[in-house]
């Protein structure tokens, strides 16, 4: 590390300590003018054995704890680099050097999982539904197509938790490591729009390395760092891919697509459906668009050209909608009972399977679904089946009682055409404990007490020693700063326990 870099970092370390509270926001705004600082900090994090690592981590935590968004983002920009440092060191079984990085990451995690009042934060979102009017649509205009499928109706504006509540963590264990890291990436991804390109590049590198180290692909990428395989989880990879997606669309085309390929490679080997799903979708959506025009000038913009809005579908082509349209017309025809109208409809119907049923032709195939349930039926047979028993006029109504002709015929059609993809597994609902077990456990514990008083078992002291193992210099600051809010009661982050415990 150059002396100049060291000087820059040391100056940065000292100046924040003397800063009055009122000057914090102007200081935060001025940080981006210090051009040499960020590269110097990256160097400190990359060099695991630097003396500056501990104070730097401490300072980054202070920034995060300040609550000033710009300072928090300053810290967050180093997150990919910090994660890589942590993961590579733990893969190399060298725990003592990553202690302060662990403490910094756990500190950020423990701050982020609680809200201002010290309550566990639960991230949720509303699943939109087409059956409810929105600022962009009117349910009546959507047409019955999407709505009568029933699928959307089931999802009428329900609120869904996608992260949280999370437990406070005092140490990293094999069990919680990826839970914590995944959550940290979620926080990073939420701030992606504010991240510098250096940070995005660092994220892409992290993704590539985590996924290929120890696998044959590592040679292909010519990365010579550690060569141990790192454990990953599907959720962690999904978060990485979200970041890579942003990088790809905002100027980091080369590194981003490499990283995406590497993550997909690993997800395939691990047979992770979630990561594969998103990765494939991103790859497919970029296939035509961003990758085609790879000019750097388009950073933070989207390549556009005037394209036709409608792919001129020829009028006689059968579409999913027109098939339904045909069916409806036919129903009206039955209502009117006019032979002419019926004739019209049958012509329309012939249009659906124009192959006819001539002897020299293969029978028309309804290739709507798939080969598993491909249905071979002549147009006439099909027509007959559809026309049968239709009497009611409620063409716009939802298929109410299954006994009406249309619903019944449609039902049979659907059941034949669609794959029956019902799951054997019922969707789990949220868990709840009955107070029976709660009180019962109290009884139980009392009987335990009797047991315990008589014969004390040898207590395993691993938890105590564990706490000490990952301690770091953040403790030196004492405990004054450790409560995020003055009015927290019993749900205060247990970070104080950790940092203060073996003073």
């Amino acid at each position: 590390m150059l002396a100049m870099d060291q000087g820059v970092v040391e100056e940065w370390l000292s100046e924040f300590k003397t800063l009055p509270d009122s000057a914090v926001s102007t200081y935060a705004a001025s940080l981006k003018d210090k051009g040499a600082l960020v590269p110097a900090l990256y160097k400190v994090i990359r060099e695991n054995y630097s003396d500056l690592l501990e104070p730097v981590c401490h300072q980054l935590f202070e920034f995060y704890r300040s609550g000033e968004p710009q300072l928090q983002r300053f810290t967050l920009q180093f997150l990919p680099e910090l994660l890589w440092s942590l993961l590579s060191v733990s893969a190399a079984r060298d725990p003592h050097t990553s202690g302060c990085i662990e403490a910094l990451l756990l500190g950020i995690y423990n701050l982020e999982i609680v809200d201002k009042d010290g309550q566990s934060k639960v991230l949720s979102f509303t699943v939109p539904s087409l059956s409810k009017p929105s600022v962009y649509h009117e349910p009546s205009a959507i047409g019955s197509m999407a709505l009568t499928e029933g699928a959307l109706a089931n999802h009428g504006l329900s609120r869904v938790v996608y992260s949280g509540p999370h437990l406070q963590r005092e140490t990293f264990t094999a069990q919680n490591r990826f839970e914590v890291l995944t959550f940290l990436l979620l926080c990073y991804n939420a701030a992606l729009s504010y991240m510098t390109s250096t940070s995005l590049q660092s994220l892409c590198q992290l993704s590539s390395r985590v996924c290929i180290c120890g696998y044959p692909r590592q040679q292909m990428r010519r990365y010579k760092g550690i060569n141990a395989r790192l454990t990953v989880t599907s959720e962690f990879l999904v978060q990485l891919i979200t970041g890579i997606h942003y990088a790809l669309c905002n100027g980091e085309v080369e590194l981003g697509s490499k990283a995406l390929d590497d993550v997909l490679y690993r997800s395939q080997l691990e047979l992770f459906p979630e990561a594969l799903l998103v990765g494939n979708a991103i790859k497919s959506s970029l296939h035509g668009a961003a990758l085609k025009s790879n000019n750097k000038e388009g950073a933070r913009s989207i390549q556009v050209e005037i394209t036709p809005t409608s792919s001129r579908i020829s009028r006689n082509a059968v579409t999913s909608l027109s098939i339904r349209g045909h069916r409806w017309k036919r129903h009206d025809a039955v209502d009117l009972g006019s032979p002419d109208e019926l004739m019209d409809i049958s012509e329309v119907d012939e249009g659906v399977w124009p192959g006819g049923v001539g002897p020299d032709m293969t029978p028309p195939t309804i290739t709507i679904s798939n080969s598993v349930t491909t249905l071979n039926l002549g147009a006439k047979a099909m027509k007959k089946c559809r026309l049968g028993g239709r009497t009611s006029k409620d063409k716009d109504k939802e298929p109410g009682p299954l006994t009406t002709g249309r619903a019944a015929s449609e039902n049979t059609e659907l059941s034949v055409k669609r794959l029956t993809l019902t799951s054997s597994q019922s969707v789990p609902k949220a868990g709840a404990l009955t107070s029976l077990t709660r009180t019962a456990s109290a009884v139980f514990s009392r009987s335990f007490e009797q047991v315990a008083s008589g014969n004390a078992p040898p207590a395993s002291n691993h938890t105590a020693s564990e706490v000490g193992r990952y301690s770091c210099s953040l403790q030196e600051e004492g405990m004054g700063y450790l409560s995020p809010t003055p009015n927290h009661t019993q749900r205060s982050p247990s970070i104080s326990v950790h940092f203060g415990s073996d003073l």
Partner: protein
Amino acid sequence: MSTFQRENDAAKSLFRRLESAVTPIVSGEYSHHHHHRDRTAMASRVSFTQIRLEAEMERYRAECQWDKMLAVIEQMHAARIHEDDDYGMLMMAESLLEDCLQENMDLLRRSSPLMEKTQPKLCRAKGYLNTILSQGRLAPRYLNEALLLMAKVHYVQGRYRDAQGMCARVGLEELTLDEQPTYHLRLLAEAFVIKGLSLDHQTVSAVSRVRLSEREEESLSCFLRACDAALSYLQELDKVVTTPHVKAAKSSPLMSAVDIDLGYFLQAALQSAYLCLLHRGHLAQGAHQLRRVLRVVESRGSQSFRKAAARKLAEVLLSSVSEDSYWPPLGPPPSAWLHREGAAASKDAIYPTVKPPQRYSTDCCFCPQDVVEEAVLLLLITESMASGDAVISRLPDQADARQASLQDATSVYDLLTIGMARRGQYAMLSECLERAMKFSFNEFHLWHQLGLSLMAARKGVGAVSVFKECARMRPEDPSLPLLAAKICISQLHWFDEAEALSQTVVSMGEEAGEFLPRAFLAVGLCCSLQASDASLKADRDEFNKRALQALKKAHSLDPQDAHIAMYLALQLALIRQVSAAMEPLQAALSLCGDDLQSLHLLTLLLSAQKHHRHALDTLNLALSQHPDNFNLLFTKVKLEEAMFGPAAALQTCEEMLQRWQSRYDVSRSSETDDSSSIPMAERTEVSQGARKPSIHLTLPDFQDASTGSLSPSTVAVSRLEAALSEVSDISSSRRQGPTYIWTTLEHIWLQAGELFMSDSRLKEAQFCIAEASAIFPSSHSVLLQRGRLAELRGQLDEAKGLYDEALAIHPTGERILVHMGRLLVKSGRVHLGEKVLRDAVQVHSISHEAWSSLGEALQSRDSSQAPDCFLTALELEASCPIRPFTVIPREL
């Protein structure tokens, strides 16, 4: 006379029809005709024919039905209308020009100029327009239109400066007056967009930077106005066209004719504003413009445009707007965004529109609060349109249309996937992708995505059949059968199926690349699991042999894989080659030192070697890395019982209950009641009443698979139990959450009950077992423990009844058979007991308890075989772990 009569009737009926809805047009016509009449002094000769034909002409011009204009021109000519001015010529010019533009859409899109030489229609149109403009024999209104058409001609010929000049001569205020015919709104939009595009094309030649940015500003303002005018035009068109024809549309093809094909300039008018903003890198303003556009009430003509715009906005949101930088749809972009993009304020504040289109109401409706919410909403709207437009027929001549519509839909589903996966909504995603199946025949990408989404949503059966279909489409891809095999093994317990799937990858050999060792692993796991299920010794041995072979092969192919090494060790342990298992296990641990299953296996192996102290140390190490793992804790209980007696083990049981509560019980954390002060008798009653469902939020689809397979017992048994419990337990509806949570709790109570029994504290034991049976009343483990308790209390008949019930549910349960056999022997029915124990030995040939119990039975009737049984039992006991090796889950 007759002709006149008929014509008059037709005109009257037409007039009646138009009267209500087309008032602006008709009144416009009247005012125009008054003017016209005065000038031409033909007041007495204004016929209905003229009104009718001109109204018809206006409608065709509004609906962009260029070819039909020609017929009207013919009729006018025949009826000698507009003989003395250039009206017909103007119509002719427009019809020809628009026809020509329609034919050359591709050239226009690429901005390549149209040549007069190759475009006779363009040439003729230009000739007409030149004549009209030089003769000046038209009312100002029509001359204005001619100027605009001329601007269009200049533009498509690539003479942008001329086009701009022509636009400057057009009196736009003429087009913005009230009571205008509908097609004037179209012309207005086109005028703005031609001006904007012309300016845009000239920017390259501008030298000064200030001049350049001025130009950019001006062209953008043109685009914004063009867009609003175009949207208003489409809304007006809807009103004009739909109202009078509701009845007629049903029987005539009019309805479909109304699905207008928007010309190049209309499309450009609609899109240019946001495309231009996005292209210049003004993401926030581009998104803002897209939102403004999408909030405009949909009209028939705007559908496909809305589809494209909604997808574009979703794309912008998902690719470039993160959660923290999101701003809600109804507000202006935050100043930080605008500042970054170099704009002081959003554009719509600066350029008020001429005639704002109608927008959706903002009250009492869903307004997204989150970037993914908005993107998903937009994509659902798009999907409802895209999936409807998808071409199903597979005629060769429709292949292009089919491909285009498929790509259209695919891009929507891809974006939907990106959005929903960020929120873990795999179940809903799989439903959406399922809808895509009706037009995705043989389309690998969508099938693959459907399979993955079903797998992520834990819809195993569907996922397997979809992956099989994918594998049929791409037989060279080894990941597809393995994905299906993974579900079969971990979720469905279809081991035959899984083995067949993995064998297809094995048979690919080298072609399978890095998947080959994993395929061998899958085969090995299937065989190993089948061996554990097999009831005949010969089958079991065969499966075990094949499992070992496959796992050894996998290990030799990829010695760096910690999982494979661990499963090899596990297989060796299962066949009681305890010391041989140590070697691959060491390899596994050196590759991944904190792996849960490896550490657990090491614990069990050490316990099998009777190194209990080392086993406990290892277990504590494992627990330090995986403190919440109940499977490890159960092993700890057993070890502690063996080493320190039941009392010490009960301490761990208590700890487990507390862990269970803190981990799964959300309701408790919000309460601070200390219920220990309530007397025990009351407590059960109170708690019965106080049971309540505590969580109202739906859990996301990500699941904790690692704790999912606690029980090694066969699936059939657990399904039967679940079904029985559902029937008998009235409170089952209150029990929410995944089953494994409740199975875990049941096991903790039963474990505690067992410990109390071995500590001879039957009252406590009964309490624990009652707790367990409150969760799963018909569980075979509960029935077994109830039987044991009854047996300890000397109620042998009751005990036998309970064992019988347990056996009815789980006929091959090792411990049930052993206890049943022993009970029978004890109660004097030695022969029957012996039979039961022989069954036990048959099915569980490595159970030393079964062998020693059989020995006792035989001894009691002085059989000479008894010593052999005891010897076997002793031998087996020497390599028996503290808990069966099968407690380690075998998953791909």
